[in-house]
C-alpha cells in the first residue's frame, strides 16, 4: 500500500547514496542522542498539524480544525498549543513529517503499537525493538521512562528504567543481597537486577514524580551526563479519543500542550547536549479524516511525526501530500501515509548513531527497500 505513492521513489533517492559518511561520529564515541516520545492511542495528526491550505479539510471536518492555527507554509498550519515546538521550528531545530505512518493499516492499537516498536511489517513477529537493535549495533545504553521496558528498546544490551516506586516503609536490601538475587536468575532478568544493584549504590536525590513531563525532565538530566544513556523513551498515553476530543481546548489539545512542554523540557534539561539530540514522536496510527458522531475521530492510518533537536539544521515540513478529497483517502476514510515512518526513524538513527543507512535498513528494520531520507531532515 505504500509503494503506490512512496515519497522518495524516483524523486531523488539517488542523491543520497548509501554509505554516505556522517561527519564526526565514530562507533566508539557516539555523541548523538535519541529520545522517542510514544504517543499512545493514535494522535489525530490533522488536528495537530492541519493542512489549512487544503480546502477539503474544512469539507471533511466541520468542527475539528483549530480556529487559529499558526501558519507554517501555504499548505500547513500547527495547533496553537505547540508553542515551544513552534519556536523550535523558527529556530531551525524542528521539523514535521506529515501523511506518514509505519506500514500498518489494520487500525488495531495493539498490533499497531507492536509494529511501530518492533519495526517489522507483521505484528508480534519479533521480540526486540528497532531502536534496541540499533542500540545493540551502536553499543549504546538506553533508559525507558516507564515501569516496564517497552518493546522498542528491547534487544539492546544496556537497558534501564526510571519510574520511581512509592512503596511505604520499604527499601532495597544491601547490594550483597541484590547480587544473591541476581545469581538465581538468568539472561535478561539477571541483567536487570545487575542494573538495579548498580543504581542502588548511586548517591543523590532523584525526582519522585511520575508524570510524563517530570519523566522527560529526568530523561534529559540523565542524558546530559557524560556516561548517561544515549537513548530515552517517554510515553504519553491516552490519545485514544473517540469522543469529544476538543478543538481549541479539550482533551486532545491538552495532550498537544503536554507533548509541546515535553519538547521544551527535554531541551532545557539536555542543555549543551541538545545540539547532539534528536527527539521524535511516534503514534500507532492517525485517526479518521471525518469526525465521528461523538465529536471524536476513530482509528485511521496516516498521521504526523514531530521531530526536534539540535541535530536538525533546517526546519521543514516534509510531506508528499495525498489530498483529502474522498477519492484521495485510504479506504475512503483515512489520510494516506505517503512516507514510510521507518525511513524517518532510520534517518534519526543515522544522524544520532552515525550508522550507515544500509546497516540500518538491513540489520535494524530487516528490509533493504527502506529509502534513505537523511538529506530531507538533516541535510
Amino acid at each position: 500500500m505504500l509503494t503506490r505513492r512512496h515519497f522518495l521513489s524516483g524523486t531523488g533517492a539517488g542523491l543520497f547514496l548509501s554509505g554516505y559518511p556522517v561527519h564526526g561520529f565514530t562507533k566508539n564515541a557516539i555523541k548523538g542522542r535519541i529520545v522517542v516520545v510514544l504517543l499512545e492511542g493514535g494522535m489525530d495528526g490533522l488536528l495537530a498539524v492541519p493542512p489549512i491550505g487544503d480546502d477539503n479539510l474544512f469539507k471533511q471536518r466541520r468542527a475539528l480544525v483549530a480556529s487559529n492555527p499558526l501558519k507554517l507554509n501555504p499548505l500547513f498550519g500547527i495547533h496553537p498549543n505547540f508553542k515551544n515546538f513552534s519556536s523550535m521550528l523558527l529556530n531551525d531545530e524542528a521539523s514535521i513529517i506529515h501523511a506518514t505512518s509505519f506500514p500498518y493499516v489494520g487500525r488495531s492499537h495493539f498490533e499497531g503499537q507492536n509494529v511501530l516498536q518492533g519495526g517489522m511489517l507483521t505484528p508480534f513477529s519479533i521480540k526486540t525493538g528497532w531502536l534496541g537493535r540499533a542500540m545493540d549495533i551502536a553499543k549504546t545504553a538506553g533508559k525507558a521512562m516507564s515501569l516496564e521496558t517497552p518493546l522498542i528498546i528491547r534487544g539492546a544490551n544496556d537497558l534501564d528504567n526510571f519510574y520511581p516506586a512509592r512503596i511505604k516503609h520499604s527499601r532495597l536490601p544491601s547490594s550483597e543481597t541484590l547480587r544473591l538475587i541476581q545469581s538465581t536468575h538468568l539472561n535478561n532478568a539477571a541483567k536487570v537486577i545487575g542494573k538495579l544493584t548498580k543504581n542502588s549504590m548511586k548517591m543523590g536525590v532523584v525526582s519522585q514524580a511520575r508524570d510524563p513531563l517530570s519523566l522527560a525532565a529526568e530523561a534529559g538530566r540523565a542524558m546530559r551526563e557524560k556516561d548517561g544513556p544515549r537513548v530515552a523513551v517517554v510515553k504519553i498515553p491516552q490519545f485514544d479519543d473517540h469522543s469529544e476530543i476538543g478543538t481549541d481546548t479539550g482533551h486532545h489539545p491538552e495532550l498537544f500542550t503536554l507533548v509541546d512542554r515535553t519538547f521544551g523540557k527535554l531541551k532545557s534539561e539536555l542543555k549543551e547536549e541538545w545540539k547532539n539530540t534528536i527527539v521524535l514522536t511516534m503514534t500507532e496510527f492517525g485517526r479518521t479524516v471525518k469526525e465521528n458522531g461523538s465529536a471524536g475521530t476513530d482509528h485511521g492510518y496516516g498521521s504526523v511525526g514531530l521531530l526536534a533537536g539540535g541535530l536538525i539544521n533546517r526546519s521543514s515540513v516534509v510531506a508528499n501530500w495525498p489530498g483529502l478529497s474522498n477519492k484521495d483517502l485510504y479506504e475512503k476514510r483515512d489520510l494516506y501515509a505517503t512516507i514510510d515512518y521507518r525511513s524517518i526513524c532510520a534517518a534519526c538513527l543515522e544522524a544520532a548513531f552515525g550508522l550507515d543507512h544500509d546497516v540500518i535498513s538491513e540489520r535494524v528494520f530487516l528490509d533493504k527497500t527502506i529509502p534513505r531520507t537523511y538529506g530531507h531532515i538533516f541535510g
Partner: protein
Amino acid sequence: MSDNKHKWARKVGFGFGPNELLPTDVESWNNSQLTSNFKSVGMAKRYSDVEIWPQEYNFSFEDRLRRAGEYNEGKKEIENSKKLTSVEKKKRVRTLRDQTDVALFDVYKFWNSAIYGDDMVKQRLTHFWTNHFTVGGGGRRNYIIGDFIYRVIYGNLNASFDELLYKVTTHVGMLDYLDNAESVGERSESARWARRNGKTQGLNDNLARELLELHSVSPERMYTEDDIRNSAKILAGWGANTDSVIRKFYRERRRDNPAIGSLGKFIYEPYFKDRAEPGRKIVLDNKFRSGKKSLRQLTDMLANDDFTARHLSKKLAIHFIGESVNQSEIDFIYNVWKDSKGNLEEIHKEVLNVTARSKERKFLWPSTWMFQAIRFSGSSFLPGFEDGNASFYKAVPSKLNYEPKKILEELGNSFWESRQPDGYSERKDDWVSTEHFDRRIKVASRIYSFQPDRQGEEIAELLDFSDNTKIAIDKASNMRDKFIVALCSPDFMEV
C-alpha cells in the same frame, strides 16, 4: 501432574498457607474448586480471624450507584458553598470520598479472597477473565468495577461463553469504557433530531472493534472494516456513560420515583431505542435485523465462531501453562471448547487437566506472585476490612488505609487503574525491568515485616527450589534477606 501439591496449588491457585490442610486427592479438589459454591471471606483486622465477608460490604449495583451519586451531589454542594474556605472544602470532599468509596472495599475483597479464600481456582479464573475483558478503571468507573468483577465475571464462570460475552458487552462499565455510550446510529431518531438542530451524531466503533479483535474472534479471522462498522451499528443504542447513569439513578431515587422498575432496566440493560440504527446489518456474512435482540445474536455468533475457540484456548493455555505452551496442549482445550459448545465449566476443567500434565513454567503476574507470597508464607501483611474505611467506625478518616490499592498500582497490575483494553500481558518480557524488580524486592521486604510463618529456607524446601537458589538463600546474611531472595528468585516468580 506435579506430585508436589504445593506447586500445583500455585499453578492454578494461590498456594496453600501454613495453616491450610493439603487435599488428599488432587483430582477431587480440582473438581470441587470448579463446581462448589463458596462464601467470600475476609478479616476485620490484621490479626483477627478470617470470617464470612460482611454482607454490608457486598455492594449491589444499586448500592454502588447510590454511593457514587451521594459523592457527586455532596461534592457539588460543598464546592458551591460560600461559607467554606477552599482548604475546608478540600477536606470535606476528601471525607465524603472516604465515606462513599466502594472501590476500596472491592480491592480489600479482592485481596482477602486471594489470600484467604477457599475458592482459589475460581479467583484465578476471575482474574484471567477480568483481564481478558478489560474495563479500565479510574474516576467514577471505579464505583462499578467490583460489580463487573464479582457479579458478571465471577458469577458466570460456569456459564457458557456466549452468556458471559453478552453480559460483559452489555455491562455499563464496558459500554462506558469503550465509548459505546457515545455511539449513535446515523439513521436513528436521535441522530435525525440532532441534524435538524445543526448537530451531528454518529457511530463510534471503539467497542465494536475490540469486541471482534480482543474479546472474541481476533484479527486472525480477517474481518473487514465493514464488519466492524456493522457491528458498531448493532451496538448503537447500547450504553450510557457512568456519570449519567449515576446522576439519573440518584435523582430518581431521591424523588422516590415509583417508576424505579424501569430504572432497573436502565441499569442492567441500558438500551435506548432512539439511538439504535434501523435496518439490516451484515457481519461476517451473517444478517442481523434491527432491534435490541440483534446484539445477543451478534455476541452469540462471535462466541461460537471457530476463531474465538482458537483464540481463547490459546490465551487460557498461555495464562495457566506458560508462554511456550505447545500446540497440542492448546488443542486439548480447543477440542473441549468445540465439543462443549463453549461451556466454561468444561473448558476450565480441561485447562486444569492440561496444566497438570504440562512441564512448562509460567512467569506469574506481579499481583498473583504477591498474593501467593502472602498466602504461602502466612504473612499478615493484609490489613483487615475495618481498616479499609475507618470513617464507617467514626474514626479519623486519615486512618483510611489505601495501601492494598496502591500496591497493586505500584506493581503495575491493578484492575482499578486506567489502562489499554488489551489488558495485562501474558509475556515475561513485559514484566522484566529494573523498576519491576525494584518493586518486587520492596514488596517482598514489606511482606516479611508482617511475620511470615514460613521462612525463606522452608519455602525453598516445600517448593523444590533449584540447588542454585537454595545456595543463594543460604548465603543471605539474615532472615529477612533470605526471605526476599526466596520470593524474588525465578523459582517463586515462576511456577
